[in-house]
């Protein structure tokens, strides 16, 4: 590039790996798996009804496909949840996620418009919450799921406090 970065960048350990990443709670795996199990059960039930009404070999084949896909996705989920990570630097929030398509977002606190803290019923049952940082750009995604409520409110308060010093529109 036109000018070298501040510190040396190695192709094998680029700087995002030198940042202190914080993982999301492993309980998110359970939540995701339960959600998936519910969907699989619903799908299987629908396919079973179909099989009972019109006996044909495609129905059980479909069921097998659904189960196989669910098992594969479950393995992926475990790794995907472990791939989520966020890091608070002094000026910006870093969020990384994704396995197939890997994404890293750098969102400066000064650009924050508002912070969302959400928790669905299942997430609440496991004591988790999702914090999402919104900027004026629709494209920026800084969403951190699977945070314990204490950590979620700490993050929210910190983000709000850091974002407050610039109340100017844009």
């Amino acid at each position: 590039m036109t000018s070298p970065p501040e510190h040396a960048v190695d192709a094998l350990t680029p700087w995002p790996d030198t940042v202190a990443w914080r993982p999301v709670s492993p309980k998110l795996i359970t939540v995701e798996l339960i959600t998936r199990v519910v969907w699989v059960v619903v799908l299987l039930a629908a396919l079973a009804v179909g099989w009972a009404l019109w006996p044909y070999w495609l129905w059980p084949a479909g069921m097998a496909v659904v189960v196989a896909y669910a098992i594969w996705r479950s393995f992926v989920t475990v790794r995907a949840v472990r791939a989520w990570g966020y890091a608070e630097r002094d000026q910006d929030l870093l969020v990384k996620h994704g396995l197939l398509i890997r994404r890293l977002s750098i969102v400066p606190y000064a650009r924050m418009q508002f912070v969302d803290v959400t928790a669905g019923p299942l997430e609440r049952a496991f004591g988790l919450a999702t914090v999402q940082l919104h900027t004026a750009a629709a494209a920026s995604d800084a969403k951190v799921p699977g945070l314990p409520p204490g950590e979620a409110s700490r993050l929210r308060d910190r983000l709000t406090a850091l974002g407050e010093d610039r109340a100017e529109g844009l």
Partner: protein
Amino acid sequence: MTGLPASPEAPGSPEAPGPPANGAVEEPRRRLHPLSPVLHGAKSIAVVVAALSWQTLSQVGLERFALVVAVLALGVVVFSLINWLTTGYHVVGRELRISDGLLWRRNRAIPLERLQAVELRRPLLAQLTGLAELRLEVVGGSKTEAPLAYLTVRDAAALRERLLALAGRTPSVELRPDAGPQVAAPSLEQPLLRVSNRDLVISQLLTPQAFLLPVGVAFVVMQFVIEAQWSFIGIASTVTAMAGVLLQPARRILQDWDFRLARDPGGRLVVRFGLLETRSQVVPLHRVQSVGITWPLLWRAQKWLHLRLDIAGYAGEPGSDSKRSDRLLPVGDVTTARQLVWDVLPGVDLLTLATSPPPARARWLHPFALRYLGAGLTPEVFVSRWGLLTREMSVVPYARLQSVRVVQGPLQRLLGLATVYADTAGGRSGQARDRDLAEAWALAEQLALRARHARATFSQP
């Protein structure tokens, strides 16, 4: 309307409100112009007629059609009248408050520090009656917030000037000697550019749609020759349908007619254009989120290009690409564009924006267009370009960056590549596609760093 937030009862005459920061002078709610319901009604009738279509006309006959239209028109006018009676606006402190609705009363407070641009639109009917519609673009609004339709041109211009003065960033208001509301002074504007209508017409004839027009005409003629069916209804509906699809160049010509750019005394950009519906848009320069440059394939013989101005707030308007007022230069040559870019983004020279291509192994992803991909960092802006047939370039000032993203898809992972996005509030992101992974990380770091520096210098001038 009594539930105002606790505001000091600052003494002051309503004609000359005090400084914007502390002056919360209660001013009376004002109504829109009395002719507004009539104009709204006329507009709705046009929509109704279009919705009923030629097909209905042929089925029910002219008299009943007229009756239906008349009844609907009456309803629309009554509705508009009620709407007019209940709509009011006033400025309180640094907010514009608009209340409307009869059954569902709605009060909106629009914080003026979030104002991005103000546009004065004058459709044909409004031009005939000397009225104008004032549209405010506010960031975060999913669509144009609070179109005030209609005001007299004088009122609208004065209100616009006042809103922009209030919206001015606090430091610049203090720096300006004549801070506060001022009367619009068009004579003091410094003209920057005028696009010749001849160039505009030629440029729109050099579009794919214009090339398709003869094909469409030939198709219609063929159809009539074969079917030998010369009913008025048939011709009318076919022509209407064709006009909708193929006459986009004509619409562009009407919209961009007599395109003028000027700089007003406050250093803001004033854009005026339009034939049937004239628009005049005022954009403070620090609201420019990014500039897009397009070289369409068919314009290359003329060495023409198109400049686009991205402002936060317009991004949300779905679909209606031609309806958006985002033109900085509908058509022009490189010299003009260079001057204009320099005016809008000081310190940015269009001709010296160097970009570097992605590594050669990215040709697996872009077999043909690799040569035209590129990204680069200059002291002020992030530049990226792409496109084989229609070449495009996007220029994003660091001070306007909202966030930076690095995305790596599965194919990119195989090749060790990644794409860096520089998101702006204008909706379009600058993107450095398929860079080497290490370079992508460095680029992201640089973008974040430079954006931080730009913000720091920007907020403390």
